[in-house]
């Protein structure tokens, strides 16, 4: 039954976003927002900051369904990632941050475990002269210096993330906020001597094994999972959705998998997005989909918070809403309309 599904469009913002950007979501029927915020390079937000953020979004009819941010790219927190002397002190600060968010009414915190942050190399021209970000492993490897002068140990990083999960998950449970980690993007073995820890299906299974709590979950960047070499994107969606480990989805498309790939318009990458959406639906996923890393279109005005301007992001939003409506409704008819020949395209 269609009414059993709850697949929802969402949109991502920077914390200092504009009135125009907020009104845009409200006008286009989007009610869920993801906000890039949280503990970062400098002083961390306090409880009141999180409350003020939520109230500002609510005044536009938008519910913050998640705060998304990476503390891990900032050296300030690297004792947590690599096991330095101030690890426990830093973890305590992060536990406080999670408490603040939860008590301010934020239900999800998505973060990452990428000391190098996310990375791309030379962008490429895609359809009609639009520009997509791209990654070329050879290019990046040659130019990126070692982050800490020597390669970091992958085993040690695994120990540290396990230590972290075991320290933070009980706090999340107690406060009622679900936590999820974004995969390594690009999902390659090593960048600048830092192992890309969460670069595969197996890595995420291992991460989930550290705590079987409902509060230990995944910020499911479908784009990055699609970039993982040799993995089947539909299988990973199904596996984690069935286990209720997907907090929300970055619904974007790419040309192929690492070591080299570029980002695409939402319906021109290698992933069949309607098949992906059906996989979420059939696995019982109930949650939100954000547009992400949209191509740069000509003469487009910057939409603060993510790649791609208003036109590009609204195209993706329209597509996301259309796919949600299509796969939600087709069950009433027993599936899509069967057609004898391929449609329009040349492949």
């Amino acid at each position: 039954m269609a009414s059993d599904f709850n697949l929802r469009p969402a949109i991502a913002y920077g914390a200092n976003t504009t009135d125009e950007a907020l009104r845009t979501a409200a006008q286009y029927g989007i009610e869920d927002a993801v906000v890039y915020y949280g503990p970062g390079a400098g002083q961390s937000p306090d409880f009141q900051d999180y409350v003020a953020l939520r109230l500002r979004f609510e005044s536009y009819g938008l519910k913050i369904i998640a705060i998304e941010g990476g503390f891990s790219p900032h050296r300030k927190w690297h004792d947590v990632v690599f096991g330095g002397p101030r690890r426990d002190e830093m973890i305590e600060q992060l536990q406080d941050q999670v408490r603040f968010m939860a008590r301010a009414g934020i239900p999800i915190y998505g973060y990452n475990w990428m000391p190098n942050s996310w990375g791309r190399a030379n962008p490429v021209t895609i359809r009609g002269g639009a520009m997509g970000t791209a990654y070329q492993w050879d290019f990046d490897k040659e130019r990126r210096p070692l982050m800490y002068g020597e390669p970091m140990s992958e085993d040690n990083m695994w120990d540290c993330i396990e230590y972290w999960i075991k320290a933070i998950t009980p706090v999340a449970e107690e406060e009622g906020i679900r936590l999820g980690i974004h995969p390594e993007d690009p999902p390659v073995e090593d960048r600048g001597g830092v192992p890309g820890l969460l670069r595969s299906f197996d890595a995420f299974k291992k991460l989930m094994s550290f705590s079987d709590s409902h509060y230990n979950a995944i910020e499911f960047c479908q784009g990055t999972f699609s970039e993982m070499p040799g993995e089947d994107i539909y299988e990973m969606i199904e596996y984690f959705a069935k286990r209720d480990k997907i907090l929300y989805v970055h619904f974007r498309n790419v040309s192929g998998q690492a070591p080299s790939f570029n980002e695409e318009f939402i319906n021109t990458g290698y992933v069949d997005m309607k098949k992906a959406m059906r996989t979420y639906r059939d696995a019982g996923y109930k949650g939100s989909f954000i547009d992400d890393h949209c191509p740069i279109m000509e003469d487009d005005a910057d939409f603060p918070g993510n790649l791609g301007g208003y036109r590009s992001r609204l195209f993706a939003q329209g597509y996301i809403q259309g796919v949600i409506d299509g796969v939600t409704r087709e069950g009433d008819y027993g599936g899509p309309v069967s057609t004898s020949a391929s449609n329009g395209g040349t492949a």
Partner: protein
Amino acid sequence: MSMRIGMGRNSASDAQAMRFMAQLGIQDVVLNTPPVPVKNGKWELVDIIALKNRVEEFDLKLTAIENTQIDMRNDLITGGPKFDEQLENMVETIKNIGRAGIPMYTMSWRYPRYYRTGHVDIGNGAMGTAYDSEVEHWPDVLDFEMTLESAWECLETWVRTITSVAEEYGVRIGLHPVDPPMPVVAGVPQLLHNFEGYKRLIEIVDSPANGILLCQGSFSQMAGADKDSGPSIYEMIEYFVKRKKVLYVHFRNVSGTVPKFHETFINTGYVDMYKAMRIYAENGFDGFFMDDHVPHTVGDTDYGHRAKAYANGYIQALIETTTNTSLHGAH
């Protein structure tokens, strides 16, 4: 069967606007009343070829011309004093469109023109156009007598004259409804404001060249289109698609029917767009869908780049999910 994605504009002169279409993957471009010079009452071949070449510069395809300037065809529609002259010039214009290799010419069979009576806030400050017959104040525009019978005579003469020409020159003709679909507008009797009018139109000459521009928005606005007994919008779509009469579709949504309605976002009107899309697919529609009359949203251009991108993305997704195929040959 092939269902494709289109988009319309009124001119091909703005390079940025053309690249906007190319970037969105538009497969069929429609130019509505493009500024082709009118020379001795008609469009000349060389000017139409220039227009087509201009579109092709951007790796786009000019599939349809939608309307010529209204003063090339006002008397043709109303039976005014220049009826014969305009008929002859439109025949020549259609021949030239065919010679230029443009496969469709569509036209609004209405006079005076499309109109609305205002705008409404359709949510959070987004604005949709609105029509309310109670507040309509449109003075009579004709200074000669026109009856329903004389109006049909004009349309029948047009269809009987143009269809064989269109067949010969490889052009399909499609007529757009009167919008708003009222029986009389500004004192002018209207023919294509309901299902009966369209059934009569396609029976004048039984030819693929005698077709319909199915402005789904205007059909949705027709009295009764929101009721099962209507005939409903879904029944009308099925009827004409089955008979292969639909050239392409203006895929937009509205709040209701005449005498009072407003335009909405594509997925917030009364028409179930998924159900509609299935009817096209199930009945073997071979044509394209374009966004149309998008709402005005905050910060958008007059052309509505943002709202068009959104509606077009929604349509692309509905086509792909409904038919389980990829528009762009990606999978």
